[in-house]
């Protein structure tokens, strides 16, 4: 052991490298660690490890971490910690540590490297299995380490075997179905700051094991009596362990116990030089077999035994530290007060059942051991050691959780220290009729703090049982959820941070957009330019300018992100007829058609334009966000319903770059870009496709319009995308060529009443609801969704239908999502009937005012009806209109 210096609450101390911060502070005589969360009561360290309820600290050195139990912080040179009064604070500096992940498939995962876990590891290793042993402590051996005893070498040697991997400081956080576990390995916090720059701080392990052995051991738990929370009151195993290692600020101890552990700890305290004034045992008798090691053993040391009694109250000195303990026989008024600065509490063992309950294994109550245990063995999971109820001679504990309390005592008898929840709080839950631990938990907040009820869970179950005269297992069962202890988000993220957290998809023209200063909009994983501001222009001004340019001159948009699926095979036309609501098999080669696809429930699922490239070759476009979903959908029908159709689908989204030039001057621009192409309406009609050289590059040009304007979509191999874009910009310079982004695209299409799947729809709209009955084939015998259109609910009157909305105040843009109510004006008294909601809403350059699209009950029959839109600060009035605002006659698309 070497000595290291550390800082706690601004004061310098020294301790032994590798001991816990809690141990080091006790070594320095610090008993009052912090105050309690809500009641400001002085608190000291209670436990040994993650069961610690009081001594939470914020770590400010190294990577920093809030709310760590001081019992789990290994002391290193330069450690800086602050006490946390139930609330942590995140460090405000960036965490530059590395975090990573690893996967492992093994035959056997052993959780816990105590003697039981090591024995299990040996057994499976002997059988030639690959074994991984994970243990959350710095050293193997479990309780033997605390007891200062050496671990049998034949067990320790197992960890060195070739088929055994041992990971210390590794907490199995979750156990899931099929032998899957997630663990976090703390790799650097215990090292000096200057040696570990290249190593990840925490590694998250994903383990798949054919079999998992749970050898998780047990915590000790407390008893509920008046003033059971003072500094100086500790779990007996913790107190004896600290004191035996020389971290001993105590002079006189009282030990209170329900089992034989209290005796063993009394002896350890005595041997370490603490005067043990009394062992107070709730049990009148102990078994003959254990008498020698318990009662006779302390008698030999001259330690006084008080049988059939317990602690009922404690007193403190002016500093709030324990200075005496009141002992009582629970059944009589006889009381005695004993001076002591340490009260070591052995309230029984609580096996660590968490991982077992994660996979639905229910712990059973053992009255003999006063504990919930898990004895389990199946092909995937087995338990061993204390978890399985193997307690040694502690299996004669008395089922006892605390003495009867007066009303005043109940106010200061703590069930859950971290939540400052008292017996009084608990009793109020019982008196209000709560019987289940889940109800009591929610009524009192017991078990909801940082420790998630590691010690208070069983205590609460026991108290409920005690209060209503039932055994703890008749109350219910303990249920825990992962993670076992808190995990920094950084550990779960691993290296998937920043750009690596989710792939970013960009088009070949992306760099141009970025250079032009366009802010980006996220569409799925795609980055799309939102609008292209000129200097000093805000979004509103930019969008109005872009839209006006498209309707008056010519605009250009990067449409490369549209999902594109190449569909080939002799039955492709037949297949598309089944997928789309309208007819495709009759489409002529070289033509495109807009299509709508529905689910079997008849609800609109996706839309897009599909082009017949040749007899048996089609190119489908999907919404930008829907491409993967649509491809899965096509494959599902082809593979599981219609395998007789010869159709092959391939995603080609990334292969093709699409530049759309849009507006009355697009014909002039198109002829400049492709001099060989006859761009007249007669030879290149709407929805037609032509192959030609554009700016020296072979291209497929489609006359498709998503704005109602004359438009050409230039499709080229992706690598030519930027070249085409730049050519468009230079050739169109004198035509006021105006790049526009997704916002203007949305405004332009909404002016024409074109829907966006996902904006006008939410999976509950039929084509008819969208006023698109024209796209539903009446000729086709069947297509996906057809039968559902005549279902009673889809055919009924009163469904929400797509309409336009004009606010009476044309300068007001109604927020999207706003509710519409029937009735003419703001003065209609409540209750008012909600009849629909706004799906799209913009200011329009073409209209010189605002407009909106909405879904309104029976809306198609209500055009002209006045509506009101209640907003937080005012009631806006308006009128229901047709959903097409610009060029109802479709005169503009041909230029």
């Amino acid at each position, binding site marked *: 052991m070497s000595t290291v210096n550390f800082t706690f609450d601004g004061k310098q101390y020294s301790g032994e490298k590798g001991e816990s911060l809690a141990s080091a502070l006790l070594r320095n005589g610090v008993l009052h660690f912090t105050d309690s969360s809500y009641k400001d009561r002085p608190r000291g360290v209670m436990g040994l490890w993650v069961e610690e309820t009081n001594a939470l600290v914020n770590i400010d050195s190294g990577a920093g971490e809030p709310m760590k139990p001081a019992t789990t912080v290994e002391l290193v040179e330069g450690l800086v910690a602050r006490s946390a009064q139930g609330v942590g604070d995140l460090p405000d500096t960036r965490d530059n540590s590395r975090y990573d992940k690893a996967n492992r498939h093994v035959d056997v995962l052993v959780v816990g490297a105590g003697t039981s876990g090591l024995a299990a590891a040996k057994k499976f290793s002997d059988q030639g299995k690959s074994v991984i042993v994970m243990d959350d402590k710095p050293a193997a051996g479990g309780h033997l380490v605390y007891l200062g005893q050496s671990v049998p070498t034949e067990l320790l040697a197992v960890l060195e075997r070739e088929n055994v991997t041992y990971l210390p400081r590794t907490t199995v956080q979750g156990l*899931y*179905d*099929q032998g*899957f576990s997630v663990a976090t390995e703390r790799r650097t916090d215990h090292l000096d700051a200057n040696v570990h720059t290249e190593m990840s701080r925490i590694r998250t392990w*994903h383990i*798949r094991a054919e079999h998992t052995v749970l050898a998780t051991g047990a915590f000790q738990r407390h008893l509920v009596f008046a003033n059971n929370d003072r500094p100086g009151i500790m779990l007996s195993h913790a107190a004896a362990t600290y004191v035996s290692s020389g971290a001993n600020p105590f002079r006189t101890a009282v030990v209170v116990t329900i089992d034989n552990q209290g005796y063993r700890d009394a002896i350890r305290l005595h041997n370490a030089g603490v005067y043990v004034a009394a062992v107070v045992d709730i049990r009148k008798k102990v078994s003959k077999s254990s008498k020698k090691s318990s009662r006779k053993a302390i008698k030999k040391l001259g330690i006084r035994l008080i049988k059939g009694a317990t602690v009922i109250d404690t007193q403190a000195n002016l500093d709030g530290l324990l200075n005496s303990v009141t002992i009582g026989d629970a059944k009589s008024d006889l009381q005695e007060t004993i001076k002591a600065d340490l009260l070591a509490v052995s309230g029984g063992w609580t096996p660590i059942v968490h991982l077992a309950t994660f*996979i*639905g294994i229910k712990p059973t109550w053992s009255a003999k051991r006063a504990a919930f245990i898990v004895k389990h063995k199946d092909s995937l999971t087995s338990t061993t050691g204390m978890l399985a109820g193997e307690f040694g001679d502690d299996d004669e504990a008395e089922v006892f959780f605390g003495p009867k309390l007066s009303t005043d005592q109940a106010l200061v008898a703590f069930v859950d220290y971290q939540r400052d929840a008292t017996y009084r709080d608990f009793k109020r839950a019982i008196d209000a009729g709560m019987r289940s631990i889940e109800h009591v938990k929610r009524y009192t907040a017991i078990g909801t703090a940082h420790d998630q009820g590691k010690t208070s869970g069983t205590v609460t179950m026991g108290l409920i049982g005690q209060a209503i005269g039932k055994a703890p297992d008749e109350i219910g069962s303990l249920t825990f959820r992962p993670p076992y202890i808190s995990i920094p988000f950084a550990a779960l993220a691993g290296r998937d941070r920043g750009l690596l957290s989710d792939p970013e998809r960009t088009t070949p023209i992306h760099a141009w957009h970025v250079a032009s200063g366009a802010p980006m909009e996220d569409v799925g994983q795609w980055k799309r330019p939102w609008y292209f501001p000129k200097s000093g222009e805000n979004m509103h001004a930019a969008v109005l300018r872009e839209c006006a340019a498209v309707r008056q001159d010519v605009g250009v948009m990067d449409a490369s992100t549209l999902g594109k699926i190449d569909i080939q095979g002799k039955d492709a036309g037949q297949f598309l007829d089944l997928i789309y609501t309208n007819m495709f098999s009759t489409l002529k080669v070289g033509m495109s058609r807009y299509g709508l696809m529905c689910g*079997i*429930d008849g609800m609109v699922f996706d839309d897009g334009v599909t082009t017949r490239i040749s007899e048996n070759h089609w190119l489908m476009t999907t919404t930008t966000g829907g491409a*993967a979903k649509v491809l*899965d959908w096509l*494959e*599902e029908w082809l*593979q*599981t*319903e219609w*395998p007789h159709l010869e159709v092959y689908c391939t995603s080609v989204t990334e292969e093709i770059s699409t530049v759309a030039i849009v507006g009355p001057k697009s014909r002039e621009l198109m002829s400049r870009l492709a001099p060989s192409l006859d761009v007249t309406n007669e030879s290149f009609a709407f929805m037609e496709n032509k192959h030609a050289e554009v700016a020296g590059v072979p291209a497929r040009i489609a006359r498709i319009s998503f704005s109602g304007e004359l438009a050409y979509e230039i499709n080229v191999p992706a690598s030519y995308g930027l070249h085409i874009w730049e050519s468009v910009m230079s050739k169109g310079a004198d035509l006021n060529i105006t790049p526009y982004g997704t916002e203007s695209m949305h405004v332009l299409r909404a002016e024409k009443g074109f829907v966006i799947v996902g904006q006008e729809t939410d999976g509950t709209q039929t084509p008819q609801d969208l006023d698109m009955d024209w796209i539903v084939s009446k000729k086709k*015998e*069947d297509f996906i969704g*057809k*039968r*559902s259109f*005549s*279902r*009673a609910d889809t055919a009924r009157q009163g469904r929400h239908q797509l309409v336009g909305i004009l606010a009476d105040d044309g300068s007001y843009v109604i927020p999207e999502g706003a509710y519409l109510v029937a009735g003419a004006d703001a003065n209609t008294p409540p209750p008012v009937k909600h009849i629909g909601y706004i799906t799209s809403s913009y200011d329009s350059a073409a209209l010189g005012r605002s407009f909106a699209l909405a879904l309104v009950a029976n809306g198609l029959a209500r055009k002209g009806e006045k509506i009101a839109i209640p907003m937080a600060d005012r009631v806006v009035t308006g009128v229901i209109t047709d959903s097409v605002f610009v060029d109802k006659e479709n005169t503009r698309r041909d230029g």
Partner: protein
Amino acid sequence: MLHIPCPYCGPRDETEFHYGSEAHVAYPENSGNLTDEEWAKFVFIRSNPKGWMAERWVHSAGCRRWFNVWRNTINHQFGPSYKPFSQQPKSPA
């Protein structure tokens, strides 16, 4: 995370797959002749058993193929997986 046996690729992590609901619910050939009740049964009603269930999954991030597999809805154990239109193995129960 489930470990799902793709009949083409072998066992892989759940994140590579998408779920496709109950297997062997065939699309009716004569949908136009079905009553509303019969059609609703096809669209909305699934057996949702407690225990072994034959399901469809697609290996989206792998071979992109749909397949059927037995899964126990109580403990998420997987039984045999099999290709569409092949002989269904017996329920593991």
